[in-house]
């Protein structure tokens, strides 16, 4: 098939699922708190070090999924309570909230680097080049990370869907997304709902981070390197649409892995060094021409 091998497809699926997991949280937070969360970078990195630490302690890295979910969820709560709630109470603008998430991200970037240095000096572990794929299982030659990442994506999306449509808390959360003032008047504790959304979004970012070193080599910089791409996924899918992120994730993941590999064989390998332009360009163009994201195009057609 166009000279694209199975490993490329597997890689494309894995990367798409990982990107989707990163994007979901950004979209969810944008819907609830209206803030583009720059701290998603350190959320993901925290997940990476959750599974790395566990593997150092002798556990299988996949236990990091659980640890990453909880740890990063708590980290998100810390951001919410220490910075965002005080700012929200001051009625700060969205832009200031965004700078707040950025400040938190810089702070945690420092902390994660200190932690990595610490692991390096104390455990003599290669904490600045974390790659755990050798510990992965495989089914019929296909690396386990593909099944795990797709599985976690399905679980996250399904869980989110059930929460938002089948539970009272979820419907209240949806109510908060639409109109916080009105949600308040019907007795919903908005701050509690936002807290919930931060825990979930942070947790899912932690899951993606925990899975990441099974697929690529990571370092304390990984979140910072990927954050523009995470935004791209979320924006491409549509910030107004909770389930848009997987759409953006698969488009971007396949474009980056499969399309690039095809282009490299057709046009020449020099094109690979231009790959990072893909998400950035796609994001800029989406924002300029369809700022509400691809997911809205479908809806427009249905209505019309």
């Amino acid at each position, binding site marked *: 098939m166009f000279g694209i091998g199975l490993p490329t497809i597997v890689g494309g699926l894995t990367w798409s699922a990982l990107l989707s997991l990163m994007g979901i949280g950004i979209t969810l937070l944008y819907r609830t708190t209206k803030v583009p969360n720059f701290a998603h970078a350190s959320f993901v990195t925290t997940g990476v070090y959750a599974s790395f630490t566990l593997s150092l302690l002798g556990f299988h890295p996949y236990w990091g999924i659980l640890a990453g979910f909880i740890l990063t969820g708590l980290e998100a709560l810390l951001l919410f309570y220490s910075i965002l709630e005080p700012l929200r109470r001051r009625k700060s603008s969205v832009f200031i909230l965004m700078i707040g998430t950025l400040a938190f991200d810089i702070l945690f970037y420092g902390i994660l680097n200190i932690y990595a240095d610490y692991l390096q000096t104390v455990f003599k572990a290669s904490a600045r080049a974390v790659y755990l794929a050798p510990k992965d299982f495989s089914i019929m030659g296909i690396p386990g990370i593909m099944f795990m990442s797709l599985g976690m994506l399905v679980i996250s999306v399904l869980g989110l869907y059930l929460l938002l449509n089948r539970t*009272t808390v979820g419907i209240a959360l949806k109510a908060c997304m639409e109109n916080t003032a009105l949600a308040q008047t019907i007795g919903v504790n908005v701050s509690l709902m936002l807290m919930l959304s931060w825990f979930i979004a942070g947790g899912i970012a932690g899951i993606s981070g925990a899975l990441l070193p099974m697929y690529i080599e990571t370092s304390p910089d990984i979140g910072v390197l990927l954050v523009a791409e995470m935004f791209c996924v979320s924006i491409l899918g549509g910030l107004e649409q909770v389930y848009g992120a997987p759409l953006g994730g698969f488009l971007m993941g396949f474009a980056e892995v499969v399309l690039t590999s095809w282009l490299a064989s057709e046009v020449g390998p020099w094109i690979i060094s231009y790959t990072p332009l893909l998400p950035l360009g796609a994001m800029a163009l989406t924002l300029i021409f369809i700022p509400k994201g691809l997911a809205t195009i479908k809806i427009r057609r249905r209505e019309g």
Partner: protein
Amino acid sequence: MLKVKNLNSGYGKLHVLYDVSLECEKGEIISVIGPNGAGKTTLLNSIFGIANIYSGSITIDGKETTRLPAYVISRMGVAYVLQMLNVFAQLTVEENLRISAAYSKVKDINKATEKIYEIFPILRERKKQLVGTLSGGERQMLAISIGLIRNPKILLLDEPTAGLMPLYVKMIANKIKEIRDMRGISIILVEQNVQKALELANKVYVLVSGQIIFKGSPSELKEKHEIMKLYLGVGE
């Protein structure tokens, strides 16, 4: 029931209300009228804990509620129907009602929903529809229902008839009376439509530039030609 005493409030540095006092007994309809920008909505916001209160006190059944967060006041039996954006457009009619009931003291949500449909039969027909598809009048009925389903002691209504067709204005007005008679709840009604406000109210407060300049029955107010003409634009 509800007592507001010497209230000074506003938003941040913007002082809106000056020494406002107001009392509302059980089963009463109180109309607050006054020109644009007089602070009518701010009064409701203050009672509901959204505005900043600088001094004064608000009590409900003797319990101090000044500076409590809005959701707590709401759970104490105060329902607030906002003037704008007062329904969740992305939820269905039924979801709107159920979510409101779920965060109140109402136990049997199904029964409460049924009762609402008896008052506003049109909502039953629309119950599976997304609220974004409803007409303005239907939305207003739903907005009141969202407040009503919570079985409140006090209902705060911010211009429920603004921008509606005359037919709906009449209907909503009748419903407001009906609700009071049926449930014995107190209603604080902020209105631009002076005629309607006087027709419904047991007591009227006239609010001008953040101060109460008149308090009394509707018939007493009609005698005060000065106020009627100057501030409310009614009269010869």
